[in-house]
């Protein structure tokens, strides 16, 4: 828990075209931007006057590789929104550039801002009044009250599992070290440097692997798992194609994956979607008939979001009804297509089965209703309650940042071992690794560790 370090966040809504803004606030803002920005004239930002817009490039500090061309400005506190030094980086819009820049800013020392944290600081530093502050409270508490939305849960879930495995190894190391420190006289084997080296090498390569996949956008792609079902010729592939067209960051299949469910990764207004079993839609256009109700059930279980497409020009069939009844309490969107034709479907019949699930009428042929579908998707994910629309993206960046810090800490442990520093210094690095990873899984150290020790070591007198 920090209260006056330097924070950064994406200030624009994600996925929008045009311009993206990354904002940094805190006493180190200018120091940080100087590490990663160079103007066209080859100068640092701090060499320019404040409140001027400067054109230049964001560079990856180690390689000097250009990340993006940007317009950058800085403002000195206290005459800023947060009353701290603020830097704003205007870059190309879209998920990828802003994400890359935010990642870089975090890597050189900023911390990802919590929802509402800029406003919170503005308040704590005396910039805004009480009434405005009430809104901040709502914002902060919304985050805890609500429990994360589906996409976040999904995203965190899969990464969490992997991270937890690495943390288990670290726990084992910590346990061994701790026992040999705190129970020096007990009958337990002294932890050897070889053991630590082996384990830490393993952990380092595990974290490196996680980061590599994060780098290729894997984490980002692990979005909302979505299935589209419907009868043949109802318009599933039209919908898919339309969504793909709309998607601003198309990511292709993971190469070399051999699984029977093929996924397509889309990004709708900043929300990553995994369309499951798109092959079925593409090739046969009759997912229900081909795979049957049983398979639909399985798919539904996999899915975070179900899109059921119905043909408005036909009456509800038994198949339709069965599929609809399978939805249960899952998040689902019912699309009634072909509003351009004479409507035979009875909306009430659908409602009777699915309750208050959102029903949208569209005509994909006439390209009517696509916006509503997209907006509804966004609304469903965020439920309109989380104001910070970039939570997903930030979560990604945050996780990656945590992984990077974990990697750095585990590398430090190698240095410590090489320098022949005593065991308890090596332990500091291992604990830091563990803690950085804990930011992803949200666990605390101390009790876990003691429980682990007492369970696994025969100690005590």
């Amino acid at each position, binding site marked *: 828990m920090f209260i006056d370090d330097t924070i950064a966040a994406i200030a624009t809504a994600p996925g929008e075209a045009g311009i993206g803004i990354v904002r940094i606030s805190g006493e180190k803002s200018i120091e940080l931007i100087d590490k990663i920005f160079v103007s066209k004239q080859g100068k640092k930002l701090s060499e320019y006057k404040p409140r001027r817009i400067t054109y230049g490039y964001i560079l990856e500090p180690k390689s000097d590789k250009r990340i993006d061309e940007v317009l950058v400005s800085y403002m000195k506190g206290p005459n800023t929104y947060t009353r701290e030094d603020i830097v704003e980086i205007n870059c190309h819009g879209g998920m990828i550039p802003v994400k890359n820049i935010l990642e870089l800013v975090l890597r050189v020392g900023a911390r990802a801002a919590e929802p509402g944290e800029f406003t919170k600081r503005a308040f704590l530093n005396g910039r805004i009044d009480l009434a405005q502050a009430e809104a901040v*409270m709502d914002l902060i508490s919304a985050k805890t009250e609500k429990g994360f939305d589906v996409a976040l849960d999904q995203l965190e879930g899969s990464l969490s599992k992997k991270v937890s495995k690495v943390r288990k190894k670290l726990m084992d190391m910590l346990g061994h070290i701790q026992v040999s*420190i705190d129970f020096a006289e007990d009958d337990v084997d002294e932890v050897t440097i070889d053991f630590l080296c082996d384990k830490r090498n393993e952990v380092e390569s595990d974290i490196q692997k996680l980061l590599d996949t994060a780098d290729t956008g894997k984490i980002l792609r692990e979005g909302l798992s979505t299935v589209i079902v419907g009868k043949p010729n109802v318009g599933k592939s039209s919908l898919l194609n339309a969504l793909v067209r709309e998607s601003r960051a198309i990511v292709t299949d993971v190469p070399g994956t051999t699984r029977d469910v093929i996924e397509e990764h889309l990004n709708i207004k900043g929300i990553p979607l995994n369309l499951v079993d798109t092959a079925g839609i593409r090739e046969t256009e009759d997912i229900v008939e081909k795979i049957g109700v049983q398979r639909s059930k399985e798919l539904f279980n996999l899915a975070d979001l179900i899109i059921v497409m119905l043909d408005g020009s036909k009456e509800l069939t038994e198949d339709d009804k069965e599929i609809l009844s399978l939805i249960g309490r899952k998040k689902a969107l019912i699309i009634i297509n072909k509003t351009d034709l004479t409507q035979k479907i009875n909306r009430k019949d659908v409602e009777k089965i699915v309750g208050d699930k959102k029903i949208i009428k569209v005509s994909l042929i006439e390209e009517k209703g696509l916006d509503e579908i997209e907006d509804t998707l966004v609304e469903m994910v965020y439920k309109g309650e989380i104001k910070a629309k970039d939570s997903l993206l930030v979560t990604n960046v945050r996780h990656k940042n945590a992984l990077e810090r974990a990697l750095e800490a585990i590398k430090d442990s190698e240095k410590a071992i090489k320098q022949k520093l005593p065991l308890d210094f090596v332990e500091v690095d291992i604990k830091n690794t563990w803690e950085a990873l804990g930011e992803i899984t949200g666990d605390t150290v101390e009790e876990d560790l003691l429980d682990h020790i007492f369970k696994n070591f025969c100690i005590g007198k």
Partner: protein
Amino acid sequence: MIRYDAGQYDVIVVGAGHAGCEAALAAARMGHSTIMLTMTLDSIAMLPCNPSIGGTGKGHLVKEIDALGGEMGLNIDKTFIQSRMLNTRKGPAVHSLRTQADKTRYHIEMKKTLENQENLDLVEGEVVDIIVENDTVKGVATRTGSVYYGKTVILATGVYLKSKIFMGEVNYESGPNGLFPAMYLSEKLKAVGCNMRRFKTGTPARVNKDTIDFSKMDIQNGDKDIVPFSFMNENLDIEQEPCWLTRTTEETHKIISDNLHRSAMYGGGIESTGPRYCPSIEDKIVRFSDKPSHQIFIEPEGLETKEMYIQGFSTSLPVEIQVKMLRSVIGLENAKIMRPAYAIEYDCIDPTQLKPSLEIKHINNLFSAGQFNGSSGYEEAAAQGLISGINAVLKIRGEEPFILNRSEAYIGVLIDDLVTKGTNEPYRMMTSRAEYRLVLRQDNADLRLTEKGYNIGLVKEERYKRYLLKKDSIENEIKRLKNTNVSPETANTIIERAGSTSIKAGFSLYELLKRPELTYENIKELDKNRPEILLKDAKTQCEVMIKYEGYIEKQLKQIDQFKKLENKKLSEDLDYDKIDGLRIEARQKLNNIKPVSVGQASRISGVSPADISVLLVYLEQKRRKKKVE
């Protein structure tokens, strides 16, 4: 019972164990009239379990108690019979001093110190009642009707409250070592709203030295160079007593397994919680059944006795079985038990009812310390005793309480853990509990805390001057090492001899000392102008501070962050139900603990970072509202 007014004191200390002794001495030394009530004067500073002071984490506590002007370090320096520094192959932060104590002399020396202490009365008597009026403690009454009135009362009752001893099927109400239990006070405390719970601990058998075959055991001698506990002692040289190491056998394990049903703990007699780090031998054998043998230490209980402590062999099995078990251990084939092992159950308080000052939240001026607070260990008790004594006095004077935070001392970690997180088992100090371990070393306890002890008035001039001398000499020496440069010509032969790689340009001694293979001693030849008189541990300090600078700096930065939240104070009468945005669980926890700072709040389980944000915003709102008014 006819009660009579037996006198008025500033501070009443109930109990004369390690917590009680430190509490009473601190209060009296700070100039306040103090009485110490104990069930028997013969059990002052008794060591009813292990004949040992210190150990990992615990050794740190003793050093800190000493730096603040407490007594434990001085007393053990007078009475130890063996001293060892543990963990010397590990970093300086986890070096831990452990001594064997002569139990009888430890008691006698402490009793002498108490008897000679100005402002302090020692009185034998069992406290059976506590007088509370208007949520404020007024005094205590003894079993014989004496009523002592006090501005403050410190409860340091150890394991005596409703204590019950278990040996197999046999159990009876008793204190440790056959002393009386205190059967009345517990109920009175419940009546004034204290939430009591029941913990358990145990002690192994004592065996006659003449019946032990030491030739079959490994000897364990003390260190040649003795490091004293107290900063006031530099060189201690005594004839040390050895300890002995032996092992259990398959036969031992068989006897235990066959008789497990007769163990008080496995047979169901005991339901309370014991410490996981002090498992009974039957517990070890059940839980780690693959281990064919466990190590057993034989430790002397003192110079004037033949009783030997059988460490690692605590049990609640019947005495009959204990004899068989013991005799199956290598070297104990003919052992004769002098005192059997037993488990003991006792009442203690849920420490989350305490403030960080160790005052009980709902009863003004009532403090508590030691095992009564759910801790275990002599050192943990003494540390709390000292703090409670100091704070009782500060309360009388109307001054701010003395609270050490987690970045300042193990004592701070200990008390913060107890009052913030509570504990489900008797709490023992461990180095792993301290997040800023690298700066909380036993070698710098004096540097960390002497100033504070001086400000309170517990550290006297002599010690303070000595501290200033040490502090200055370290600072000067580090400066000198930074400014002393050596050339490759003069340095290379010497540092290569020490196993280090040669240098190509001039280096300061400070830089050279950062190399792991170079030490203050082995570069002596390079260092012509080394000051003659430098305290031994000042050298150690320089070396540690130079060698581990990088890690220590990192930790100091973390401490800066930590302090920011620690310095955001929360008022005791804050009603968390009235703060919008806090989750329900957080509200309940916060209302229960009533943290003194946002930092403390952040360590309560069930309070999330978002709740902390809400608290910060709330504090700012309140501050501004006040400003407007």
